[in-house]
């Protein structure tokens, strides 16, 4: 068994209404300690109102080597951005 504590990914909500954002990672023996450590490591300058912790190995990610076939196709399809419409003045900021 490894003596190293598992790694946790830390997500912090900066203000009510915003979504949680990934801010970094840290080591902790379990989720409760990961939360306490995250509070001390990542919110000491009043950065957040909520913290999520997720054990790093619970995150499933695409293989970076497969980026070519996963992400290349839309690159040539700029028309999928809704940027080709004229917005009337009185609609205001979108």
């Amino acid at each position, binding site marked *: 068994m490894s003596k190293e504590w598992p790694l946790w990914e830390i997500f912090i909500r900066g203000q009510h209404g915003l979504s949680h954002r990934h801010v970094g990672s*840290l*080591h902790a*023996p379990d989720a*409760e*300690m990961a939360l*306490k*450590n995250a509070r*001390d490591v990542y919110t*000491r300058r009043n950065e957040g109102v909520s913290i999520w912790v997720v054990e790093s190995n619970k995150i499933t990610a695409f293989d970076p080597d497969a980026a070519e076939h996963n992400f290349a196709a839309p690159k040539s399809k700029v028309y999928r951005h809704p940027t080709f419409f004229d917005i009337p003045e009185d609609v205001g900021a979108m």
Partner: protein
Amino acid sequence: MDPLVTFCLRMGDTTLILGQQTAAWCGHAPVLEEDIAFANMGLDLIGQTQLWYELASEAEGKGRTPDDLAFFRTERQFLNAQLVERPNVDFAHALMRQYLFDAWHLPMQEALCESGHDGIRELAQKSVKEVRYHIDRSRDLIVRLGDGSDESRAKMQAALDALWPYAADLMATDEVEATLSEQGVLPDLDRVRRAFEAETTATLDRATLAVPENGHARTGGRTGIHTETMGYILAEMQSIPRTYPDARW
């Protein structure tokens, strides 16, 4: 000395010396996360010291600043509880000292939230939030390490055996507190002792740690009587301001 000044110094000196002892772990705690947590707590305590010293200075009216009080008093003039001057030894000692302090500090701050003195009540209402987090953290670690491996349990028990006799000094009172209670500045402090007993009985039981039964209790810090470690702490803490008394950032 005015009892109000004495009381504010008893509180502020206790948070200052513990903050100084806690700060000594910066860069030395067992893991990075704990290092940051400990340093944060030390800074909270030094922030609270500043508030107590401002109250003391205001009540005294002699124009002594918080820096004067921290750096230009001698050992016999410091009124901190002896518990907080006990040495860092190892992380078990530092944690146990912190936990025993927190187990007193939280009910004390909660009681002071009802003080008849505006300054003390406002200080307590601000500090109590920090103190609630401190004990959340220290209580959790006491239980984890007490009820942990054979090695961690042995270290926590050794720390408890060494430090328990000094917990009495946190709750030592004399005519200073009695006078302030009569004036309505301090609420009933007996409930702080009862809360300390309930908290430590429940937590040490969960941590499978046993309170020493020899009945030893050490007091005296509140009247300026200190243990052999105190002079060294002050020497380190005060050396720069005493060498360069007018130095400014």
